[in-house]
């Protein structure tokens, strides 16, 4: 009898836990979009546009057609019902979203993904281009897959705006350009979790980027410090410390340094070659 009671209590406990884990959601029937929340409101401004507000602990979800995942305490914005002209089946896509409270946005591309972490962020996608705006302190991590594991490019700044190709286009390199205000830091790490090493760190006051083919042209200005610890020929081979007023750094599609050139005030830059073990 006692054993049966114990089993019943255990089953009830499991049931309660399971129930608490099932959160309500809004999803399309194709399984391309879903969001989990605690409280919500939606309003159809027309039959294909849904204005929404979700709150939760946290709100989280994904848009597979946009390679996008998101999470925040509150999310306000607009969803679009996109109908496939061939199948006539609709799916949902995020047109606009303002995320507040532990905002995390992850945009996946074929090389890896870009994650934005901040207190608040806004994403807009008009079908041609997408914009991610982060008004305050944030970090973004761009992870790419390389032979020995992953390479991460971490950008930290006090604010920034990123232009991307429309997320629904699923481009291999979606990033078109960005502007970040400082102090800014760029840090590239490579390797597996237990054998990670920093390839280079760049700090400055202002950073802009524009894409040129698969390359990323970075312009950084204001007390720029570049520190490279990479002695591997496969990984950029930059082993030095450098202080300049302004620098242009060209990264390849795997965020490997292809070229560094100082600009603006030649003569103020210093280059100190590192020795092994330094």
């Amino acid at each position, binding site marked *: 009898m006692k054993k049966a009671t114990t089993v019943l209590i255990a089953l009830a406990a499991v049931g309660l836990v399971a129930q608490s884990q099932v959160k309500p*959601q*809004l999803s399309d*029937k194709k399984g391309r979009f879903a969001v989990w929340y605690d409280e919500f409101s*939606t309003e*159809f401004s027309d*039959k294909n546009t849904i204005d929404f*507000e979700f*709150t939760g602990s946290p709100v989280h979800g994904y848009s597979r057609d946009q390679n996008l995942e998101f999470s925040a305490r509150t999310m306000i914005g607009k969803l679009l019902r996109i109908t496939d002209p061939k199948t*006539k089946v609709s799916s949902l896509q995020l047109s606009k979203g303002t995320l507040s409270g532990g905002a995390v946005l992850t945009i996946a591309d074929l090389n890896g993904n870009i994650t934005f972490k901040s207190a608040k962020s806004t994403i807009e996608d008009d079908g041609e281009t997408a914009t991610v705006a982060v008004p305050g302190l944030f970090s973004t991590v761009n992870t790419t897959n390389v032979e020995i594991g992953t390479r991460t490019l971490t950008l930290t700044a006090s604010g920034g705006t990123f232009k991307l190709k429309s997320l629904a286009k699923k481009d291999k390199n979606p990033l078109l350009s960005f502007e970040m205000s400082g102090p800014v830091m760029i840090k590239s790490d490579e390797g597996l979790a237990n054998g990670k090493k920093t390839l280079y760190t760049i700090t400055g006051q202002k950073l802009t980027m524009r894409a040129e083919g698969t390359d990323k042209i970075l312009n950084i200005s204001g007390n720029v410090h570049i520190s490279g610890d990479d002695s591997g020929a496969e990984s950029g081979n930059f082993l030095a410390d450098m202080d300049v007023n302004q620098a242009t750094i060209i990264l390849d599609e795997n965020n490997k340094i292809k070229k560094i050139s100082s600009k603006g005030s030649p003569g103020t830059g210093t280059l100190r070659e590192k020795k092994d073990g330094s």
Partner: protein
Amino acid sequence: MRIHRKHAYRSIIPLFLVIAGSCGGPTPAPTPSAKTDVTKVLPPVKSVKTKAPEITIESADGKSSYVVRAKESEIHLDESGPDFGTMTNVEGEILNEGKVVSRFNAPSAKVDKDSQVLELSGGVEFVGEIDQKPETDPVKRDEFILHAANVKYLQGLGRIEAEGAVTVTSEDMVMGPVPKLWATADLRKIATPGKFK
């Protein structure tokens, strides 16, 4: 909000009179003395079961209305007149300015006499028509279907309040389940109660 009683009674009172009359057996001869006798013989009627009633309730301003059809209904009576009581196996529509904005069906319905609220219960299906297409369109109608254990329609506020594993589905979307959900009658605006504006 108030029930437009005159309009509402238009359909129910004749029905009640027919049933009330049939409860008393053969109609007495129309003489003054016989009329008095009937009053003494018939006990005060408290409730009457009817078949297939239809009631229409209009808002005071006449802009919105709803129609409830039931296979069976129980009408309660007191000094202030008939109350629609409980109706079973109901279906109906909510109209706004003459246009149907939603349809519903439920095992049971009640028009609350005091709050004048329509209460649907027992597993309710509520269909809102977000963008009603012409009847000639063969492809699809853009319908949103709410399922809930119980649904109240507060005519004066133009709002429905659903509770009990509430879901809203359309041809391409699913919302919920949530324990409680409020919405406009056409399901154009849907929210958990704390978020409804």
